[in-house]
């Protein structure tokens, strides 16, 4: 039950439970994509005990590695800047992560389900612009919320229908949608930022509860809901199945196409909610909002351990990924680094984070 190529400290063969200490929680990444596909042996190093594997879903083991990365970043932040470990700063990081966090929840579902959504940023833009038109604002808070979410849902639905029933590759469909939706946003807004005049709407971003902005609670709520949906419902289970092997899912009686539509719809709704948050935060809607959010969210999902090919992944990982990126940015600002250094460092940190997760996974047997 273990890897003999590297002699491990002698183990009592009679005690398979030896692996199940708390330390073993970080063991092995059997679920990690063998990055070079050709190597089934690639994972030989990972020696998780079956007992352990039962306790922790594979994805969570991966997330633990990311948590270590986050802690390390925290250490770096604290040592380089006295301002890092203050309540205010933590709240700033979390608030900064809120919008992209919500988008990433949807993106995680889509990617686990075997797709990809390049249009998230554009959906945010069009939803934000639409909900801040003068006509919409005249309906007050409720009208604006409703519009943003419905617009997001509608664009997501359209994505889903084109992909599932039009049978156009997700990459192309959402790429096209990325262009078109942003074009629509520009058209509606005439390329001007539209200021929000409904005060209760802006309060979404300014109101706090126990010193923490509503936005953070909102993100937390959506992450928790997303986690439950992914891990505790039939919908989530089917998402894994559809992404892992669509043909097998179909033959197992899952309505693959309908499910695919729902996944993009879900992503669209998340973008609608994110648009509300972003619009409230910026107190205005604009067609250039959410630029490149697609890359940010996909990067967070992938670094969080979800397979780009679908079928395996973790929402917790994705959110940790978002937090890692937001924290990196925050540390940069605190340390007054210039943009070029920041970018170089960002690349290095991403690579280091991935390697660290691996390392963390490989050496941790109790």
């Amino acid at each position, binding site marked *: 039950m273990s890897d003999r190529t590297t002699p491990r400290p002698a183990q009592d063969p009679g005690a398979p439970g030896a692996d199940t200490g708390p330390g073993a929680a970080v063991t092995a990444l059997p*679920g990690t994509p063998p990055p070079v596909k050709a190597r089934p*042996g690639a994972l030989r190093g990972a020696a*998780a005990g079956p007992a352990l594997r039962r306790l922790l879903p594979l994805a969570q083991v991966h997330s633990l590695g990311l948590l270590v990365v986050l802690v390390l970043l925290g250490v770096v932040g604290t040592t380089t800047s006295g301002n890092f470990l203050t309540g205010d700063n933590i709240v700033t990081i979390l608030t900064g992560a809120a919008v992209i966090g919500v988008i990433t929840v949807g993106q995680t579902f889509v990617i686990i389900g075997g797709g990809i959504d390049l249009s998230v940023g554009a959906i945010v833009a069009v939803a934000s612009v639409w909900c801040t038109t003068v006509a919409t604002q005249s309906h007050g808070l409720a009208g604006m919320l409703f519009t943003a979410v419905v617009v997001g849902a509608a664009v997501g639905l359209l994505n889903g229908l084109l992909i599932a029933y039009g049978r156009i590759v997700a990459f192309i469909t959402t790429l096209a949608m990325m262009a078109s939706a942003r074009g629509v946003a520009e058209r509606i807004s005439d390329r001007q930022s539209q200021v929000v005049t409904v005060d209760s709407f802006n309060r979404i971003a300014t109101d706090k509860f126990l010193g923490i902005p509503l936005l953070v609670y909102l993100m937390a709520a959506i992450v928790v809901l997303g986690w439950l949906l992914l891990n505790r419902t039939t*919908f989530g289970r089917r998402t894994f*199945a559809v992404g892992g*092997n669509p043909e097998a899912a179909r*033959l197992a009686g899952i309505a693959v196409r309908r499910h695919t539509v729902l996944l993009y719809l879900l992503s669209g709704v998340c973008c609608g909610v994110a648009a509300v948050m972003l619009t409230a935060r910026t107190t205005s809607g604009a067609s250039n909002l959410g630029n490149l959010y697609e890359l940010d969210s996909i990067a967070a999902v992938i670094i969080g351990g979800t397979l780009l090919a679908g079928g395996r992944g973790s929402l917790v990982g994705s959110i940790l990924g978002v937090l890692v990126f937001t924290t990196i940015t925050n540390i940069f600002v605190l340390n007054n680094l210039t943009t070029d250094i920041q970018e170089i460092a960002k690349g290095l940190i991403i690579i280091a984070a991935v390697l660290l997760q691996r390392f963390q996974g490989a050496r941790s047997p109790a």
Partner: protein
Amino acid sequence: MRGITKVFPGARALDGVDLEVRAGEVHCLLGQNGAGKSTLIKVLAGAHQPDGGELVWDGEPVVLSGPTAAMRHGISTIYQELDLVDGLSVADNIFLGHERARFGLTRRGETAAAARGLLRSLGHPEIAPGTGVGSLSPAQQQIVSMARALSHDTRLMVMDEPSAVLTQDEVGNLFRVVRELTARGVAVLYISHRMAEIRAIGHRVTVLKDGRTVAAGLPASTPTAQLVALMTGREGVYDFPERPGAAGAGERAQVLRVERLRLPGSFEDVTFTVHAGEIVGLAGLVGSGRSEILHAVYGALRPASGTVTVDGKALPPGRVTAAVRAGVGLAPEERKSQALFLHDSVVRNVSVSSLSRFARFGWLDRGRERAAATARVTELDLRPADPYRAVRTLSGGNQQKAVLARWLLRGCRVLLLDEPTRGVDVGARAELYALVRALADSGVAVLFVSSEVPEVLGLADRALVLREGRVVHEADAASLKESDVLDLVMEGSRP
């Protein structure tokens, strides 16, 4: 090979295996599913590095650092899992890794000619070297794999269940090739779960059990019962279950009724019924349309015309979900691509079709799910009995059991089985037969496809014989003889 060990995370696949193959002989490797046969030959092919033991080749100890090293020594391998690249043509696949090329430029004419020659020598001149491998049937792909193995200058040919996807006449072809090889002094290591084949072609037999050699170099004439006992560690009779009295068939309710089902290019005008508690077998050649009929019944293929009724209700054509809801289940022929979520656990694979049963408003009761799935898995004696193991790491036979467990859990009115025993060992086979019988006895209508005529005749109550997409004969299985079926399948019209 001496004392070979191989350890996977969580599984000790080989635990000191000894094997000795002589030039010019056909050496058969026997063992239950998961005994470690494939792992052993992968070590031999340089695809896995052994964790212990030693390999002696021509009297010299060697280390095979990779597939190329093995090929250099003249070891060529036909792997159990089809190891072809869909995007490439037949010829490119055959010569992949040792392309006919000069300065890196492929010589396409020469490659095609050589490929054509190899395919012809295998009795399949109809496979064109230029076709994409992805568009071939599994049987044809198997031929291509064989052609690839033959394209090397071979001294030891390793064949991991080459006959699994072949029908009987093609197995004959395969044997001819094997005999030609041995006549040239090439050694052949042959793996199969079909005892008859081993008896027909093998010279000596080595039996593996749980990653250990339990008997080496037995003569091929060793009685089946003794071999099976060695493999399983148990004595017992392995045969088809008793058929219940044929008498009841007429009175039992019709469960599945297929009428004038037609899909141009695949099958024409197919009409039959399956009653509750009845097992109907479909016999035919590869490509005769059997899988397609199952798919059409299941709604995975939309037929051009015709109706499928279950319990008197017509199924909407081309809708799998409706069929599943009506109580139809399918265990498809290609487990890996069509049935399994390879990276998921056994439990998840088993429960995927019955999720709503364990859910309330979409909310899963995972405890119940786990208990129910585990119960089915235990019932089927799936090994290793770890419901959280990723299906990918199970042996072929156990993967098949996982698929069956899925439908067992769901509880079907109609069960469609496409080559259910492909790659399943003798012991497990008998268990599967008993299981299918038991299901039928509980009132399920079973329709199954098999390329092994004895299986059709032994397990089914009634058999349909298919040729080129048409049902050419229908009869009580008991009244048919193997040779009759073979004749029907080949020529069609003879009674």
